[in-house]
């Protein structure tokens, strides 16, 4: 019989709750309170997440975010700024010692990305891993991923782009050189794609989630059993949301 992991479908939540839930699962799993967990979620309102090492004010036009009703949050993972709107976001939490997870960090990125790629394949999209942390189809990015390792536990989360709005994204992000902004936007439009663009039709969040569930099960040879957050995880998430992710101290720490 295949190993059973937990699947959480937490639906849409705001940026602070979303990042707090991923961290709560990491802590709960590190205390051996919950099985390895795969989670699918979305963002409402839309939000920008920045990498742990990025400077908030250097990356984000905060006034534009307020104007457009877009939240912003600092992740516990490194990597770059992401505009989360029409996408499915996954996370996976699993012990570093689990035999399915390569000790080598880059190899473990590739392994988890393998699950996303198999999920995309179920939708009819062939893709490949593009180190360090992207998945591309026909050379264009369709997924970005970021991993942290804390408490002997791996947390990797990433995006699966269902649709993309580069113009809105750039109205929210700062660029190092305003003079070349138009060229940068044109470049990014060439380099990024989405499920909708690949298939020429809208695919629902539910369909993408179904495909990704299959992808994770196939890659890791496990059964994903739908579950819910434990009370302890929900309390931890509330605590992380209030004490860090929603605070100025956390979000502006760099």
């Amino acid at each position: 019989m295949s190993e059973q992991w937990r699947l959480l479908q937490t639906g849409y939540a705001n940026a602070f709750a979303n990042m707090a839930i991923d961290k709560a699962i990491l802590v709960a799993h590190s205390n051996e309170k919950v099985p390895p967990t795969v989670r699918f979620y979305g963002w409402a309102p839309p939000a920008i997440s920045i990498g742990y090492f990025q400077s908030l004010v250097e990356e984000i036009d905060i006034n534009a975010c307020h104007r457009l009703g877009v939240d912003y949050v600092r992740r516990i993972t490194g990597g770059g700024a992401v505009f989360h709107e029409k996408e499915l976001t996954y996370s996976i939490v699993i012990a570093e010692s689990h035999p399915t997870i390569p000790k080598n960090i880059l190899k473990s990125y590739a392994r988890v990305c393998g699950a996303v790629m198999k999920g995309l394949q179920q939708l009819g999209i062939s893709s490949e891993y593009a180190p360090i942390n992207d998945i591309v189809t026909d050379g264009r990015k369709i997924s970005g991923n970021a991993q942290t390792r804390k408490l002997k536990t791996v947390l990797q989360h990433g995006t699966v782009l269902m649709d993309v709005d580069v113009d809105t994204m750039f109205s929210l992000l700062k660029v190092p050189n305003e003079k070349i902004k138009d060229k940068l936007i044109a470049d990014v439009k060439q380099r990024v794609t989405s499920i909708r663009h690949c298939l020429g039709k809208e695919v629902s969040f539910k369909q993408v989630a179904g495909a990704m569930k299959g992808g994770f099960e196939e890659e890791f040879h496990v059964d994903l059993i739908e579950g819910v957050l434990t009370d302890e995880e929900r309390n931890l998430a509330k605590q992380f949301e209030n004490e860090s992710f929603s605070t100025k101290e956390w979000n502006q720490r760099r």
Partner: protein
Amino acid sequence: MSHMQSRSIYKVPQGKLLKITLDYDETKNVITNIRITGDFFVYPEEALEHLEKKLKNICLERKELQEQISSVISKYHIEFIGLNAESLAQGIMMCVS
């Protein structure tokens, strides 16, 4: 004392975008404060703050910087992805060139 502040943006070859804000004493040629930001990965993440602290009062010479960075990397068992000691030294030196 002559305090200066300078910034650099450096695309690490085959890596990520490194942004440095450097405060330094021009007379003594030493770092007084440094903030290292960007879209790279550091494991464990908290180690980057140790590195920033350990670069204070270090001389703005490429060789010395690289040695100090390497020694902090090995002391704290830091793993960089999309960044390395050489590129960090490069980004810092770009602030003063």
